């Protein structure tokens, strides 16, 4: 166990498919490099070619079955741009209702089932307890019931209006296919009010269990989980967080606005770097450049998703969420915050904004207007559509012929924006825990927590059942002989 060792963590879980982490040690037995490999590609950008544009919202959700609504909506917005048609006010409201319901239920899934159990039950708790059942054990059965109810009711809204919760179908250029009636408005408004209460209550749980526990707070603000990068997110005209629409804003690691641009101009700001050892690409800020897997102001690496969105904004769009936004930055002590584990906190604040937005939309009876779609009259050409998926800024870009048949498609998928940062976070955690060839058992937990904070699509179903993330670390000597294996 002297030199040239390789540590394999396989499978960590999947982004698009499984993921595998390879850690290489140097002569001293310290970490030299860590690689997160994504061994999966399906080729959507190529097989989109030849398809009628209006079918894209029904094809692209199959990129990810966990966040199909994000692809559906980004694709539908791309069609608006492509066909030069604005959605009717009601069409837009219905889309925003679906989208906020989705943002809420997805964030809640993550906090209670996937990433949150690390916190709620405790990072030192037995692995078998760090799941939804462990959460219920800690916070009580009544609360467990509330979690299930809140998610079920939010998903019912998407199911009713979108057709299917896994792969919705309602988006068309200029609006949506199905209207809302009064009976369902009343029912969904009840749900939304409950969901606001629930979101506040989730933040209370975070407060009680994490913030009142110094040990947890120390982990959150510790060095092992900190990387300094640029941040990106959609903002409205007042620079408040918006999931459905707005301009894309980028802030520097020190917080100064670096860029603010329209979806259509994304190619002026973002490029993607290719590495031969993974099927996933690494987006970076074009005007800084790709400098490798390094942090800081001179590196084009940026981050997306909850904490990044809050960092890139001047506040939340709804009053209750705004209170929590202010409190979060007060506790973290700086804005932007570079603490990867604070993604969990930001996620709950976003869930609250999404809930409040649902109530606002459903209290407005304009949402009942039967005029749900503007039928396009112009010749389709080219379109870009952007939304904030739960896991980050999601770009769809299509070109068509005059009949609206796709000739070119380009996609920058939410989690992929974070690909470089996830690699760096894992490397940092590994460096903190592997010294002189000694691998502490804590590496498993730490790597898992660093990874899971990003909620990379499929970060995953792991906590949904008794059991936890499938992690194995294998240590090989230079002849590839297995010398040690850690498993949980």
């Amino acid at each position: 166990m002297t030199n040239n060792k390789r540590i394999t963590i396989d499978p960590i879980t999947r982004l698009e498919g499984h993921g595998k982490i390879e850690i290489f040690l140097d002569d001293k037995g310290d970490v030299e490099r860590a690689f997160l490999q994504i061994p999966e590609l399906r080729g959507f950008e190529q097989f989109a070619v030849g398809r009628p544009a209006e079918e894209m919202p029904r094809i692209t959700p199959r990129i990810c079955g966990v966040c199909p609504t994000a692809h559906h909506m980004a694709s539908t917005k791309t069609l608006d741009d492509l066909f030069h048609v604005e959605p009717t006010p009601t069409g837009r409201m219905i889309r925003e209702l679906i989208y906020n319901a989705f943002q809420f239920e997805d964030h809640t899934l993550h906090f209670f089932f996937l990433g949150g159990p690390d916190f709620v039950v405790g990072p030192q708790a037995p692995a078998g307890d760090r799941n939804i059942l462990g959460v219920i054990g800690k916070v009580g059965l009544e609360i467990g019931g509330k979690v299930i109810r809140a998610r079920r009711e939010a998903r019912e809204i998407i199911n009713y209006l979108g057709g299917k919760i896994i792969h919705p179908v309602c988006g068309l250029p200029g609006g949506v296919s199905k209207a809302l009636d009064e009976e369902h408005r009343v029912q969904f408004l009840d749900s939304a009010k409950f969901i606001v209460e629930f979101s506040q209550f989730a933040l209370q749980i975070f407060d009680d269990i994490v913030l009142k526990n110094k040990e947890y707070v120390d982990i959150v603000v510790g060095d092992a989980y900190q990387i300094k990068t640029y941040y990106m997110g959609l903002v409205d005209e007042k620079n408040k967080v918006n999931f459905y629409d707005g301009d894309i804003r980028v802030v520097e690691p020190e917080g100064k606005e670096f860029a603010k641009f329209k979806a259509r101009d994304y190619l002026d700001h973002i490029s993607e770097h290719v590495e031969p050892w993974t099927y996933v690409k690494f987006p970076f800020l074009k005007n800084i450049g790709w400098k490798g897997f390094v942090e800081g102001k001179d590196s084009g690496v940026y981050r997306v998703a909850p904490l990044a969105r809050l960092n890139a904004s001047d506040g939340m769009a709804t009053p209750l969420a705004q209170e929590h936004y202010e409190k979060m930055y007060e506790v973290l002590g700086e804005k932007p915050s570079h603490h990867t584990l604070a993604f969990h906190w930001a996620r709950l604040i976003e869930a609250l904004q999404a809930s409040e937005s649902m109530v606002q939309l459903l209290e407005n009876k304009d949402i009942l207007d039967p005029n749900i779609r503007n039928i396009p009259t112009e010749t389709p050409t080219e379109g870009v559509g952007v939304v904030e998926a739960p896991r980050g800024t999601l770009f769809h870009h299509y070109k068509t012929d005059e009949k609206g048949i796709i000739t070119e498609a380009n996609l920058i998928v939410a989690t992929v924006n974070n690909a470089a940062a996830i690699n760096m976070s894992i490397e940092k955690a590994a460096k903190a825990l592997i010294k002189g060839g000694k691998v502490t058992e804590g590496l498993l937990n730490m790597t898992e927590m660093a990874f899971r904070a990003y909620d990379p699509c499929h970060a995953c179903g792991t906590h949904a059942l008794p059991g936890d993330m499938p992690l194995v670390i294998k240590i090989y000597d230079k002849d590839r002989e297995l010398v040690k294996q850690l498993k949980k």
Partner: protein
Amino acid sequence: MSTEKPKVAFYWCASCGGCEEAVIDLAEDILKVVEAVDIVFWPVALDFKKKDVEAMKDGSIAVSFINGAVRLSEQEEMVKLLRQKSGLVVAFGSCSHLGGIPGLGNFWNKETIFRRAYLTTPSTDNPDGTVPLEKTEVDGKELTLPRFYDTVYTLDQVIDVDYYLPGCAPPPDLIMNALQAILEGKLPPKGAVLSPNKSLCDDCKRNESKPEKLTIKEIKRPWEVELDPEKCFLAQGVICMGPATRTGCGERCIEANMPCRGCFGPTDQVIDQGAKFLSSLASILDTDDEKEIEKIVDTIVDPAGTFYRFSLPSSIFRRRRMEDIK
């Protein structure tokens, strides 16, 4: 531990994870399943590895549920191993059943897919023309990736399959019915698709609005027209795959006022879903004049990608000819 619970495995190939969500969406029912069986392999949820499966006796897994199409060498190896270790294999969801949306990749090949993804997309900055490789050395460190095939395969083109659970994703009631049938040993004949063997139109609420003799003069695209929320889509001139598609989905897309795209595949009597739809369509065109037929057919955009939206790899064509791909 006197009576041993049946062992069950779940695996994913080229898929989106929606099938895993569908299982998790069983909510309270999933706990009943967990009680009744012993899950021995499920990479998304449980910590068991390939070598654990290799160590099992042949045939010792009662049933393996496999979702996703087969597109990578790793997937082929894994499903062959699971076949060897399993009494039953169920193809779970459209991708493993028919090829699914990733099966549209069969209009292309590895080279064109890689060229697009890594070289020609406008956001890609790749002056050296780097593409992912099966084997790479980075500063003397060797990294490997599974091989990417030219063609997407259905599960039964790679291994023997006992049953098919259709849908993208399969609905909860069909999943529970299938699990119960397997647990109770009330199995249909081998090769059965576990959903009623009749067409979607037979169950569709809009069937009543379908005229006695359905005829159409032109094809409309869903974005071009107001979609009547009660009338048969074909009667509105909008392509709906209902006549060529198996029922059992609950007409969820139609409930949202959008036409069927065929994710359940065809009924038992039909070999090729696209060909079946074409013949249904031909029978409702309201003309015998060849020129007019041609004119109507011209209004159908992307027939191959629409009629075979979910089933290209399972069709009689399987894929576009390699020599036709530029």
